[in-house]
């Protein structure tokens, strides 16, 4: 049953990007002792991420999936594409947080190291071919993000966010482990491909305990991607955590959760599609509903975006429910687009923050267009994109996800999604209305920096570019996933 342990030098070649990220993170910890300027540490972190990106591009040429370390790790286009999302996420997050963390008086060198450790965890999750690696990657990501959420040690909000995130995260990883244990006990293996084979050879397709294990796994992934009813932590943590970390968390762990979910459901439980859809379809519907409707009542913009990110998780789930490779492609495409528009929106929120002014309430955006027309125009683009109005990227993302759902025969789900998408326009466009149609109540001074301007330029250009020329990104995703 057991394969001989095969740790070869060739295997290490495949995890060069992960090793790069981890080495850079360790280097940053040491560098923090010598270098006083945090800008240098951030720059080294970004440079290291670019090196890893280069490594991933070099490995992109491999068309066939290659496994290493006794089939624990798999390198394929799917994982590589997710890694690109994680690189973009960490680079943009570092760019928007440099000045912000100084304002928050939480400018620690560990911040950048932890961002990279979390990214390494996500990368292992995206490339995991075994439930053990999924667990380890997930914990590396989660433990780093717990600390990041509570990094503003002197602020009670941040403490409370970290505390809630930690307890619910630990709770969900216990569910993941119980699911792994049940699956392992019945199939005799933790390898995803072997699980799929065992389910057929041992005739376990209809076994209720396998279904129970599957439910436990979906519940724990649901916690990570914030599906209702496992979303309780999300609004509190998003509100209390440093805003740059909120941006990081709303993209990275969510994308990693989807990466793992896609792999486990398609690779290991591909034959049980009817069973997992019976769990995922109700979850998707209530996620879209609760996310869109509760967001209407929010006055804190970070909290509003938390509910919005819950609703977006519901839309993304439609691609997985479709159950086809095309559906998975549309979800990944959506995640890439979501990375740009969400980090862009959080970048604007961060700009409003300055010493003695939170800038998180909707009222703070009143009349912003009069004093800061450019920042308001960018926020307008991001809000339009999050709503899904063409010609922004958000429209493209939603369009393909809904299309795949319809192609697989889930017309009613697409209809429900469009309805809630229309409802969500209310709270996104309310921000625009506050900026453009109300009179300013107070003087708002924006905190800008070069890195922040760079991040805003990249996100805004990408949102518009993907919105106008969607085929480039879509082809890239197709080539990566479908081969």
């Amino acid at each position, binding site marked *: *049953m*057991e394969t001989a342990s095969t740790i070869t030098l060739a295997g290490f070649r495949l995890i060069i990007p992960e090793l790069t990220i981890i080495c850079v993170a360790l280097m940053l910890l040491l560098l923090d002792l010598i270098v006083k300027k945090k800008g240098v540490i951030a720059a080294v972190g970004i440079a290291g991420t670019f090196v890893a990106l280069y490594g991933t591009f070099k490995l992109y040429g491999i068309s066939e999936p290659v496994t290493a370390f006794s089939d624990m790790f798999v390198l394929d286009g799917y994982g590589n594409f997710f890694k690109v999302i994680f690189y973009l996420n960490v680079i943009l997050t570092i760019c928007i947080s440099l000045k912000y963390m100084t304002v928050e008086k939480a400018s620690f060198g560990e911040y950048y190291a932890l961002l990279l450790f979390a990214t390494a965890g996500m990368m292992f999750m995206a490339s995991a071919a075994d*439930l*053990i690696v999924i*667990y*380890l990657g997930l*914990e590396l990501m989660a*433990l780093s993000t*717990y*600390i990041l959420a*509570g990094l503003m*040690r*002197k*602020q*009670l*909000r941040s*403490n*409370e*966010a*970290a*505390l*809630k995130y*930690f*307890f619910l995260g*630990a*709770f969900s*990883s*216990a569910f993941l*482990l*119980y699911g*792994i*244990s*049940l699956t*392992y*006990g019945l199939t*005799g*293996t*933790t390898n995803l491909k072997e699980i799929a084979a065992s389910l057929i050879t041992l005739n376990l397709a209809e076994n209720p305990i396998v279904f129970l294990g599957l439910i436990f796994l979906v519940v724990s992934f649901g916690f990570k991607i914030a599906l209702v009813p496992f979303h309780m932590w999300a*609004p*509190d943590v998003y*509100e*209390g955590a440093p805003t740059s970390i909120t941006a990081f968390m709303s993209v990275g762990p969510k994308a990693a959760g989807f990466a793992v979910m896609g792999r486990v459901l398609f690779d290991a439980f591909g034959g049980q599609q009817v069973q997992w859809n019976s769990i995922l379809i109700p979850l998707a519907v209530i996620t879209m509903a609760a996310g869109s409707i509760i967001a209407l*009542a*929010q006055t*804190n913009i970070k*909290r509003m975006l938390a509910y919005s990110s819950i609703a977006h998780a519901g839309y993304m789930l439609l691609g997985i429910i479709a159950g086809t490779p095309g559906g998975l492609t549309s979800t990944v495409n959506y995640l890439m687009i979501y990375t740009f528009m969400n980090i862009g929106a959080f970048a604007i929120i961060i700009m409003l923050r300055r010493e003695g002014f939170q800038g998180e309430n909707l009222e703070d955006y009143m009349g912003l267009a009069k004093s800061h027309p450019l920042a308001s125009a960018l926020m307008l683009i991001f809000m339009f994109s999050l709503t899904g109005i063409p010609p922004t990227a958000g429209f493209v993302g939603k369009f393909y996800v809904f299309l795949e759902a319809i192609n697989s025969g889930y017309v009613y789900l697409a209809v429900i999604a469009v309805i809630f998408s229309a409802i969500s326009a209310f709270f996104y466009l309310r921000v625009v209305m506050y900026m453009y149609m109300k009179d300013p109540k107070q003087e708002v001074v924006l905190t800008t920096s070069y890195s922040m301007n760079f991040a805003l330029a990249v996100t805004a250009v990408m949102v518009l570019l993907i919105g106008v020329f969607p085929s480039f990104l879509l082809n890239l995703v197709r080539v990566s996933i479908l081969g």
Partner: protein
Amino acid sequence: MVPLSWYIVLSAIVFSIGVFGFLARRNLIIVFMSVELMLNSVNISLVAFSHYLQSMRGQILVFFIITVAAAEAAIGLAILIAFYRNNPTIKVDEINLLKG
């Protein structure tokens, strides 16, 4: 010899106690202990399965779980202490700054 099903039932019972404790108890330290109980119930079932299947994978995972649980405890208690310094309470009901 104790049959496999006994271990699995024991594991399920301990896991359920952990879930109940997590949801029902109002003291953060006890909530934390409940999470550890859940993790250890998984360890019981993994070792039992591993012995039954004569495969080492389960026991390897147990070692990883123990290690990660230690790291998790360190981080969790650190967060708890950071919280306690600003707000000296460990009652779940009194942690209600963020809501809505």
